[in-house]
């Protein structure tokens, strides 16, 4: 663990070259985040940025956020990853989940800038301080695996509805417009899709 943390991306490249081996980049966000936390590794940051910033932007745009705002949120999200790298705990959540919650908080901060919203602090307090179950050091990894397995079992329709619900919340009007389905069916479909996901998660438990 300590040795892995001491590695930088450049270090890995040199180590690979020194052994005469071909340098193969496996994208490992946990190691990259650890490298930022330990040594302020800029190359690690660039690798994370190149992978995640276009995805954060893409995710927000899929939820209907305009490109310019999505770009700003993506920039601020990755900058927060740089600043808070030391707070990342891979036992609690995957790098993707951690970065997605940072993106949500950045989006709140930017959208509600003028009212000086404190809502992102509320989420941080919940994430950082709420007591974990005592028997679950592996809870985070297990949860991630279950959620990913459950997601693969959703139909394309259900996936889209869950996507809109967890990204955009429960904004019926928006969902109805975007999916071109009557407003009246949106609520029941959202409820169905979420309970379906919930059921899959229970099955996998």
């Amino acid at each position: 663990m300590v040795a892995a943390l001491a590695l930088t991306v450049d270090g890995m490249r040199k180590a690979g070259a020194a052994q005469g081996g071909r340098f193969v980049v496996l994208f490992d966000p946990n190691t990259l985040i650890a490298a930022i936390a330990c040594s302020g590794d800029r190359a690690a940051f660039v690798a994370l940025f190149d992978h995640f910033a276009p995805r954060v932007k893409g995710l927000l745009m899929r939820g209907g956020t305009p490109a310019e705002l999505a770009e700003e949120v993506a920039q601020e999200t990755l900058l927060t990853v740089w600043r808070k790298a030391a707070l990342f705990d891979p036992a609690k959540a995957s790098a993707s989940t951690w970065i997605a919650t940072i993106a949500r908080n950045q989006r709140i901060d930017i959208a509600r800038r003028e009212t000086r919203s404190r809502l992102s602090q509320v989420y941080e307090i919940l994430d950082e301080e709420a007591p974990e179950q005592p028997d679950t050091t592996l809870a985070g990894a297990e949860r991630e695996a279950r959620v990913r397995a459950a997601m693969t079992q959703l139909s394309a329709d259900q996936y889209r509805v869950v996507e809109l619900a967890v990204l955009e919340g429960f904004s019926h009007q928006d969902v109805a417009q975007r999916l071109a389905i009557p407003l009246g069916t949106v609520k029941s479909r959202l409820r169905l899709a979420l309970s379906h996901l919930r059921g899959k998660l229970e099955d996998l438990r």
Partner: protein
Amino acid sequence: MSIAHRPSDEMLATFAAGQLDEGLALVVAAHVEADRESRKRVQELQAVQGALLDAVEPVAMDMGPPYSRLVGPDAAEFGQASPAAEPGLPGVLRPYGLGPWRPIGIRIALRRVEVPGAEARVFMLRAGPGIALPHHKHSGLEWTTILSGAYEHEYGRYAAGDFDEADSDHDHTPRVDPVEGCTCIVAMTGNVLFQGWLGRLLQPLVRL
């Protein structure tokens, strides 16, 4: 703490998406902080967001990495501790200003929670054992998380950590636990019409 009443999955999804009005979100957060099961659901919804992030089609950035802003870890990030939570209050209230407890009747007091920019008005209510809370109707939402003690109405008993989403079609009169009393945090939107002498006392304080 045994929780009997929780927000729906849809409401938690909206909460996890960061799309609830801040006042309503704060009352949900007070419940989530107290309830392991709802916290687990929120964590699952966040993991769904992470899975979606992995699966999404990337969209090229217009600007590259913000090199000029990559300074060492921001000292302020770690040095700036939020004020300590008041004993007995949820940690999620820490970022917010709280007014003083003000008596608004016999054995009933109200304390305002300042949530700038929120549509909902947020306040804590503390009621002595056995009293009936003001009988009221409302046009908007009224979400409550019990902080201590309990009350009871036609939908059941609501004790510490429980979440109560009042149905705007009903008017109800919660009855406070005869031994423990009750302290709760409430977010309200729309107009509330209190009835009776206690309601008339409460009205101007809640209406803002």
